[in-house]
């Protein structure tokens, strides 16, 4: 199996057993007193990846990033970058640079001095420092702002200075702590694509910490979803969204309709599950290890459920009836909240393919509707 010839494997190095991981995190834990911030995690990140650590506040993602940067020492386990154990390497000697959430620009230095700081520490000569700073400021389009101090810059400009400063040393790995957190929505989308472009062009491995699932989904090659100091799932954005492995992931990434029930039978790749809140069993495709009688959950994404005022003529669908309780109009789509019975409400996203006729959408408030989804639309979760 050669990774040079296979385009699928060059884009997905984690699938290629011949590839050597660039960053290896091995059985790493970090305790602060009695609190376990990071709990025995293993992770391999490959060269050129744009890897996202995603999770809520206090999940341990920032602590993990700070351990890679060298600001925290693991309580146990080890971290290797490009084959070197980082155990006794202080932050100022690691081949990584970090872009801080607060940007951490030196307030008493100009833009130029900020960007040049890292190169000066490396003892490069003036001419080379000047050239590299120029090139970097050119890239982030701040060449005309070189003599300004950080407080004379807008949020987006500060963010670009921070990026330039962390990239100018050509690190092997760039760590980004909530890189887009402080920007408004429009600037954020723009910056997001800039980041992806830069990463693509320079081929530097990026590790991004974020709490924003949309940011993680659009930016990264792979995502590690973290909770309580441990990884809940590691995979590509598509894998994480379409095939969540646990209720936590299904719920944390996007939204999901969750049914609780028991497995009553499975044949081929279709399982039958008796759902507590529905009269009829639900048929769903599965890949997890199941046995009859075990407790299971079905998760179905809101956009994978169909909505109709008339019965469906496809009898492979799982169908229930319900009443439209709420409609949220987003322009390109609408979200319907359907009450199936007092204990079960479903959320459905329906694209607004046509303009509403007489101001009426696919379904209206208090209307009785049919709701159906294919067995392939849901996933079975066992925990």
């Amino acid at each position: 199996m050669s990774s040079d010839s296979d385009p699928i494997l060059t884009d997905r190095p984690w699938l290629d057993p011949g590839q050597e991981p660039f960053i290896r995190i091995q059985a790493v834990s970090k305790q602060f007193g009695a609190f376990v911030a990071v709990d025995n995690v293993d992770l391999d990140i490959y060269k050129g990846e744009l890897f996202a650590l995603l999770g809520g506040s206090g999940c341990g993602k920032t602590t993990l990033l700070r351990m890679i940067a060298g600001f925290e020492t693991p309580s146990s386990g080890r971290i290797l970058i490009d084959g070197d154990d980082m155990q006794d390497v202080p932050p100022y000697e690691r081949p990584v640079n970090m872009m801080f959430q607060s940007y951490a620009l030196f307030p008493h230095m100009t833009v130029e001095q900020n960007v040049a700081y890292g190169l000066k520490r490396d003892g490069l000569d003036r001419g080379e420092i000047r050239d590299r700073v120029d090139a970097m400021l050119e890239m982030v389009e701040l060449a005309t702002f070189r003599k300004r101090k950080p407080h004379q810059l807008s949020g987006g400009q500060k963010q670009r200075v921070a990026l330039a400063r962390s990239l100018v040393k050509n690190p092997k790995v760039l760590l980004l702590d909530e890189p887009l957190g402080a920007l408004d929505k429009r600037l954020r989308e723009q910056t997001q694509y800039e980041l992806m472009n830069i990463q693509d062009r320079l081929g530097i491995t990026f590790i991004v910490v974020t709490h924003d699932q949309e940011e993680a989904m659009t930016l990264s090659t792979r995502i590690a979803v973290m909770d309580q100091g441990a990884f809940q799932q590691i995979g590509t954005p598509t894998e994480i969204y379409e095939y969540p492995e646990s209720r936590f992931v299904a719920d944390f990434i996007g939204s999901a309709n969750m049914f609780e029930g028991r497995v009553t039978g499975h044949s081929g790749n279709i399982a039958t599950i008796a759902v507590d809140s529905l009269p009829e069993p639900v048929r769903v495709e599965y890949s997890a290890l199941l046995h009859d009688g075990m407790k299971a959950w079905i998760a179905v994404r809101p956009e994978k459920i169909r909505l109709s005022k008339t019965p469906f003529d496809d009898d492979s669908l799982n169908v229930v009836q319900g009443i439209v309780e709420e409609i949220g109009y987003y322009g390109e789509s609408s979200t319907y909240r359907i009450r199936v019975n007092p204990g079960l409400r479903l959320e459905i996203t329906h694209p607004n393919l046509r303009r509403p006729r007489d101001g009426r959408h696919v379904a209206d408030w208090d209307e009785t509707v049919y709701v159906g989804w294919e067995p392939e639309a849901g996933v079975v979760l066992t925990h």
Partner: protein
Amino acid sequence: MGPKRSRFMFSVLCFGLAFLYVPMVLLVFYSFNHSKIVPIWGGFSLRWYKVLFQSEDVWAAAILSFKIAFVNATFAVMLGTLAALALVRFGRFRGRTLFTGMITAPLVMPEVITGLSLLLLFIGLQGLIGWPAERGFTTITIAHITFSMAYVAVIIQSRLSGMHMDLEEAAQDLGARPIRVLFDVTLPRLAPGMLAGWLLAFTLSLDDLVIASFTTGPGSNTLPILIFSRIRLGLRPDINALATIIIVAITIGVILFGWIMLRQQRQREREIQQAALN
């Protein structure tokens, strides 16, 4: 709020201000008095200013006081900053609590005791190693450093603990060793605090009578010692003139400092506003 109440509050305010400033105004007023007896008005005159400027003792005392204050403030800032850095940035080392206590002790220690203990130390040292041969500039400066340093340490400590570590971490991340981080990032950020500490140490030293009296020797009079020793023989008009000069100098200093700060702040606000616009 009714007019009755506001009138009451206004009179309280006037009384308070009068309590603070009338004595100083009187002092300035009497410094221009021609009469030799202070409380009796003998017409306007600059006579006592002339006497003052011709008095060599006063000049010598003023110069000594300023020299001590300057050296004291400089050393106090250096040592106080180091102490604060050790307390805030070095984590929990052995004996940290003891060190914290020892740093702040001079703040609460009665001056008489500090002065007396230092005097005993100097006398003991003199007997033991023959140094200091005589008490004066050096001994007073050392004594002043011991207590001013504590004030500086407290000021710097409060600034440091309010400062995030992210700038220091960013510098380290970019390849700066800890000592470089200190000089490139930490100290520039502490500069305003260090300046405030320097000014405080300077004034504390200029102001001190008790500790200086204990640790001085024959012939070395600081300004407070000189003023106090002369006042003991009765109110003297030339001392009024001296006090007036000090008041004027301080007032000018404070106004100038405030004006510069205000201007810098306005400039900064303007720049921030401009940055937000583009």
